[in-house]
């Protein structure tokens, strides 16, 4: 920008460039030490409740004129009957395909002309309608989003189309080793009665059984201001939020919803269990090694998070260094640590090349057992904790990132200062904590191994590892042999 200064500077330095090319004045041979850490605080959420019972939570982060707003309804797949698996997600997807006299096309057109990003969907815990918009159009975008939640029309043709789309997505997922192994792992670690043994997207069989009446009934039963939270994050303060919320949702009515009690029983496992799923011709195999572990709110969350980070939280973590960097079997190997309500899966997962699948499984199992049974060196733990603590501000720099964390806190009943104190609590984890959870929350003697791949090439070598009992499942989780 300042061309004059730049030129003068370049000229001044040109003389110094006469140094021998190989000299490294000042560059140094050891990593520079960090400067003083600068303070960082997550903005404090504020909240209020509208007269109709809708809880509103606001987090003011005004760095840029952008806001992420999400209407979170406790209508996730946790609460749907097993035979109607996929209903919560299908209903949420259909919200935007017709509402308050508008067609799906018209809703999409209005949102896109506002330049807003709008999506609806559902996971295990909740359904949501989420809009991200520049501040000047936020009000209009939020009112439109609110109509899709409060007054969806669920046209028959859209129901048929979106259900077909869900079936197609299911088929795409089944076509990959990542999808096949992920589905099988959930079925392997949870009892069939557990919603967590299924995916929120449903299966072909359950989706084909859903009717339009199921969808309208589900919406009527679950969507109410007293079963929802409005979360606004970004360039919006509490006074603005109150106005926005009142205008968009003030007219919403509905009673409290009695959510059914949900439990997610874990399969009792004695010894290591191996599940294989065939995908003929596959050049890679999808591998999972793990079990059910802690959920949100567990006092051992931070210790387990740290254990997971040491084992597979980053590039330098054990799983990736072993399977990718030492052996070149994969493009990456990481842990999947996904606390949910009361429980959640924990595993090493990777896509590995077919002819090294047995070796990769053996090493993944070995690493899994080692973290649970051998003390973690203090230096390794410190470096890992520094990573989680230091990267936290990066992860909440966007309104979407910050809102995602706040949504987790709201859904799982975490204290609203959870993210404010997050870094301090991570930093406090000690090697003794890892040893403790390695003994109580990880059970290396009862690990579940799932591998999806070309069984004609990988089954015999995996059986030869003698890890434990071996079963072959089809893609739907039925035992073949």
């Amino acid at each position, binding site marked *: 920008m300042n061309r004059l200064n730049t030129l003068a500077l370049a000229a001044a330095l040109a003389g110094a460039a006469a140094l021998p090319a190989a000299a490294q*004045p000042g*560059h140094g041979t050891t990593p520079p030490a*960090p*400067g003083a850490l600068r303070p960082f605080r997550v903005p404090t959420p504020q909240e209020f409740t509208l007269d109709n019972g809708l809880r509103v939570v606001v987090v003011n982060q005004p760095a840029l004129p952008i806001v992420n707003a999400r209407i979170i309804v406790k209508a996730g797949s946790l609460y749907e009957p097993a035979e109607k698996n996929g209903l919560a997600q299908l209903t949420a997807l259909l919200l935007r395909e017709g509402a308050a006299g508008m067609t799906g*096309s018209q809703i999409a057109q209005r949102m896109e002309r506002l330049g807003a990003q709008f999506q609806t969907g559902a996971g295990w815990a909740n359904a949501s309608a989420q809009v991200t918009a520049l501040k000047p159009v936020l009000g209009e975008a939020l009112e439109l989003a609110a109509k899709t939640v409060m007054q969806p029309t669920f046209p028959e043709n859209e129901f048929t189309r979106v259900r077909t789309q869900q079936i197609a997505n299911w088929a795409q997922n089944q076509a990959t080793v990542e999808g096949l192994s992920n589905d099988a792992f959930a079925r392997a670690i949870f009892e069939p009665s557990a919603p967590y043994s299924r995916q929120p997207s449903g299966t072909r069989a359950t989706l084909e059984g859903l009717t339009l009446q199921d969808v309208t009934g589900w919406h009527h039963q679950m969507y109410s201001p007293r079963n929802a939270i409005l979360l606004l994050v970004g360039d919006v303060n509490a006074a603005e939020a109150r106005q926005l919320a009142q205008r968009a949702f003030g007219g919403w009515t509905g009673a409290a919803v009695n959510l059914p009690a949900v439990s997610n029983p874990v399969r009792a496992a004695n010894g290591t269990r191996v599940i294989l799923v065939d995908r003929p011709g596959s050049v890679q195999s999808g591998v999972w090694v793990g079990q059910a572990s802690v959920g949100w709110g567990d006092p051992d969350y931070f210790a387990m998070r740290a254990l997971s980070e040491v084992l597979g939280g980053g590039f330098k973590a054990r799983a990736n260094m072993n399977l990718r960097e030492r052996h070149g079997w994969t493009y990456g190997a990481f842990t999947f640590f996904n606390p949910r309500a009361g429980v959640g899966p924990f595993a090493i997962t990777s896509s590995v090349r*077919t002819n090294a699948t047995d070796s990769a499984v053996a090493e993944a199992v070995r690493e899994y057992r080692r973290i649970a049974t051998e003390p973690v060196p203090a230096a390794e733990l410190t470096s890992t904790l520094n990573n989680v603590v*230091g990267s936290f501000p990066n992860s909440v720099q966007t309104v979407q990132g910050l809102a995602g964390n706040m949504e987790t806190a709201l859904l799982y009943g975490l204290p609203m200062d959870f993210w404010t104190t997050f870094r301090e609590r991570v930093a406090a984890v000690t090697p003794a904590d890892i040893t403790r959870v390695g003994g109580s929350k990880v059970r290396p003697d009862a690990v579940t191994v799932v591998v999806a791949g070309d069984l004609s090439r990988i089954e015999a070598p995996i059986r030869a590892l003698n890890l434990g009992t071996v079963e072959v499942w089809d893609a739907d989780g039925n035992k073949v042999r």
Partner: protein
Amino acid sequence: MRPLHHALVLAALLPGALAAQAARQPAGSQATRITYTEETLPNGLKVLYHVDRSTPVAAVDIWYNVGSKMEQPGHTGFAHLFEHMMFKGSRNVPDGQHFALLEGAGARAGSDINGTTSWDRTNYFEQLPSNQLELALWLEADRMGTLTDVLTREKLDNQREVVKNERRQGVDNQPYGTWLEKMLAYIYPESHPYHHSVIGSMEDLSAASVDDVKNFFRTYYAPNNAVLVVAGDIDVDQAKALVRKHFGWIPRAGAAPPLREMSLPTVIGRPQREVVPDANAPVPAVYVGFRVPSARDRRAETVQMLSAMLSGRSGPLYEALVRRAGVATNVGVFNFGLVDGADILVVNATGKPGSNADSLEAAVLREVGNAMGALTTEELDRARAQARFNLINGLQRTGGFGGRADMLAQGYTFYRDPNWVNTRLAAFDRVTLPDVQALARERLVPDNRVILVYVPNRAPAAQPQTPARP
């Protein structure tokens, strides 16, 4: 929709979900101006400094003016393989320590630390707590200055295997995984530098020697062939001193060899079509590609507007193919943004289980023809509104994929204009409806079209091309 974008640029490792979300967002606004200070070191290194103290994070982002288009025949995939080697240590950084130091300093691999290779450039970035800025500069300087000192056959063999796994995961084992390399091969003639994919041929990779890699480094990895961006919670004077200290001693290199001829006729000149049986594909899919003006052409923004007008959930193709005809479950329209000679605009439609590939193809071609009628002022306004949003949305991040540092580096690397990010919205505003219509009439024609029809083929499994076990 997932298979579309993520394969265009190859990364050293899979970015996290956050990065994936930011990767597609372009740049500049009237409300948000990305300010910067620039300087050029005596060794030719261009440096841009951007101050934003809203979060205590700093970003270091370095773009080398080298991509797969610089590769010579028989050496395809080198730029990308080389990018992997940049993470294998340098004179003062033992193998493995690059990630170890950065992760220990508070950066997440994938989203905050990565390297990516495209046809036109290779970049490396770190976003970390601002008190660790000097560490990132030290690491980038050390590998720019001394990488070849410690490059060994063993490290090369190891990363060759990782790249082959990357190919298996992203291409060989995915539905429609081959579409990108097929599209390139049809849009660009065999002699053209964009003809081959960034990941390159596995045979060429197998043949790469340590000397080849060292030569590649000496040619392209020099301060006078790069731009460094230092952004975020920084003090410019301090940052300048650190940059001089760590990068100032690195010698400049001779000029890189000129690119091979990149210019191309405006249209391909004949229709092309291939039916691809795909053992990985559960449903049919169609990819239609057109040769369009490049990202350095005066009509670059017109291409972007055309692409945006055709895409989206209220766009004419989604409306016709997904909602009205119901032959597709999803439709995507996008262009790559290649900077030399010509770019590619792709229309992609995915069918339903059991649907017929021929009727999907016919419907896509019909609707691309009909789309001419949908190029209206309202649709142009919609495209601009989305561009405005995408700009601000992407600029939320200091570094990482598509963040502020990336936008500044892109402007300098491709346009020799760091201010490019701040000119985006005005450039979009200058595009007129007749511009878009003229472009569509000229380029969305059968003689300029490549059709790839993917047909599910579960029966004979594709023969895997797996190398011998090391």
